Structures are given as C-alpha cells and as structure tokens.
C-alpha cells in the first residue's frame, strides 16, 4: 500500500457493525464496514466516539485487530472495563446493524510493515489486551506470506483470558517461522507448557532473539508491563531505537 505522510486532518466517519463475537469472557471483537476507510497499517488505532441523547460525548482509542488486507472492514477487539464509559456499551449493547462513529487510522510510529524488518527477526511482546495491535501485525504477516522469523511472547492472566487463543495455536503450528510463547500469571490448566509467571528478564533472555540478528521489537500492554519488558530488553543489550513501546493506562481502554 502506498504510504503517505500527508493525511489530511482527521474526520469522523460512521461504520456499520457487521459482526460481533466473544474472544474471551472479558473481550469481544467487533467488525465494522467503513465505506470511507482510507486503509490502515498493522499497529494503528482508531478513536471511537459515543454520543448520549443529551449530547454528552465520550471518546476512547482502540487498536485495530484486523490486517490491512480486510479493508474496508475493520475489526476492533475491546476489553470490558466494568467502570468504563465506553467499553461496556461496545461489549454488551452494540448489535449487528448498529452504527458506530469513529475516526482513523491513527498513529504511524507503532506500525509494522514487512519492509521495516530489514532482514532482522521480529519480537512481539504482549500483555493482556495489548495483543490486539500485535495480532494485526501477525495477521498482516500471514496475509502477505512474509517469512520474517517472528516470536510472540504473550502474557495473560489465565488460559481463559488468552485472546485469539485458537487462531494463535493454528498459526503457530502452520507457520515454521512463527513461534508463540505464552505465560500465564495467575492460573493455568494441567498440562500447561508455557511459562507461569510475570514476564521477567529470565523469560526475555530465553525468548528474545540474539542481538547480532538485529531484531525489531514491539511491546504493548499496561504501563507497568511495558516498563518491565522494555527495561529487561535494554538490560539484555537490545537497542532502544529498535524497540517500540506503547502503553495503555488504567483508563486508556485501549
């Protein structure tokens, strides 16, 4: 896709919900048809705006889960925050056929394209729903048939909380160049073969690519998760310039 810097200012557009489906007990994917979608790159996000009958508006950012190849359909995966203003509506109330107001795509820094890897392997580090934009990268990588060696290190609370679990297992088995490594921080079922603790420097040392392969790394998750993972990788000698981070705070609803 042509990559343009001059985008024009952001404008709001309406999308129609064409599919919804649960990913985990707390997350749901919502697929929108967007007639005016300009296309996106893997890793970008959108702003969603809800307007109440009295005119009150609430706006939140959500990462795009679907690859550019599915445009003009765009899928968001939203985690329900019980005290949230926007996510309970998106996960509980929104139905197929409803309209949703959004704008995007937004962001160009936390983006992966095959041409960016420059031969080096890719390390994706996800905490919880931080998997969403990284999944767009994995799906894009699969869609274009990229053979860039890729490892996903994905931290979840429990087995049931692993978003895209079956799809990741399928891709892991089908693609020799893709390796999915899970860690489960609170509970895990019998026979669990992943790690069973929070991400630490030992896990990163075992999973991260050797430095001489010049890996490119994307880290996305809650702020403390990202800080731990980024600091651990830097301590192992990884180059900050090749390590892109994005944090969602407690109210970010990303």
């Amino acid at each position, binding site marked *: 896709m*042509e*990559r*343009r*810097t*001059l*985008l*024009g*200012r*952001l404008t709001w557009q309406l999308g129609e919900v064409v599919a919804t489906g649960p990913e985990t007990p707390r997350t749901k994917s919502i697929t929108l048809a967007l007639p005016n979608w300009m296309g996106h790159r893997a890793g970008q*996000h959108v*702003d969603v705006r809800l307007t109440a009958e009295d005119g009150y508006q609430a706006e939140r*950012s959500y990462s795009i889960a679907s690859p550019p190849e599915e445009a003009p359909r765009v899928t968001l995966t939203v985690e329900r925050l019980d005290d949230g203003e926007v996510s309970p509506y998106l996960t509980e109330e929104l139905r197929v056929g409803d309209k949703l107001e959004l*704008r995007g795509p*937004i*962001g*160009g*820094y*936390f983006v992966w394209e095959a041409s960016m890897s420059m031969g080096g392997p890719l390390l994706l580090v996800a905490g919880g729903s931080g998997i969403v934009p990284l999944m767009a990268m994995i799906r894009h990588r699969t869609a274009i048939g990229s053979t860039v060696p890729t490892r996903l290190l994905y931290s979840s609370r429990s087995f049931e909380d692993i978003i895209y679990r079956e799809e990741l297992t399928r891709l892991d088995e089908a693609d020799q160049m893709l390796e999915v490594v899970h860690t489960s921080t609170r509970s895990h079922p019998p026979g669990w073969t992943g790690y069973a603790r929070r991400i630490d420097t030992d896990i990163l040392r075992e999973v991260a690519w050797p430095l001489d392969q010049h890996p490119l790394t994307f880290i996305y998750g809650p*702020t403390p998760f990202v800080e731990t993972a980024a600091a651990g990788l830097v301590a192992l000698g990884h180059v900050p310039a090749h390590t*892109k*981070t*994005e*944090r*969602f*705070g*407690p*109210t*970010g609803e990303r």
Partner: protein
Amino acid sequence: MENKLDGNAAAGILQEIFPYEMTMAQITCTDCGATMAMGATAAYMHGMGTVLRCPVSDTVLIRVAQIKGRYFLDMRGVRVLQISAEA
C-alpha cells in the same frame, strides 16, 4: 495517579491540528538536545489535555488541549520539529 503513555496516544489530537501523521515527526528537546520520534516521547493524559515529555530529560516538550472549540498548543520544550513532507 498520572496516566503515563507513549507519544502515540497524542496522535489523535495532533492529527486534528496538523495534516500530517505526527507520531513519526522528529522532536528536538530544548533542554537536552535529544531528538526522537514523537511516538517515542512519554505522554501523560489528563482531563485538561495531553503533555508530552522528553524520555531523556523529562522536559515538557508539548502541551496540547482542545477547550471549547479552541486548540491550545504549547511547544515551549521543542527546539526543532521535523515533519517529513513526502512518503
């Protein structure tokens, strides 16, 4: 508690103001001279607006807010802003 995010979190409001994708714009910090992509800065989101800080010296680079239909953009911490004009 302050909500520390990355510069990418300010992409939406900055793209309301500038017709460019701004997270790849390069910022030079007035205080320490470090140059980085806007997406690599530290962002703090408040109800009153967004503050971007230098990840090296913690200097406030940019404050941006939209209040009652008016944008307020305070760039006192930015020595140079470089925006790529082509693809």
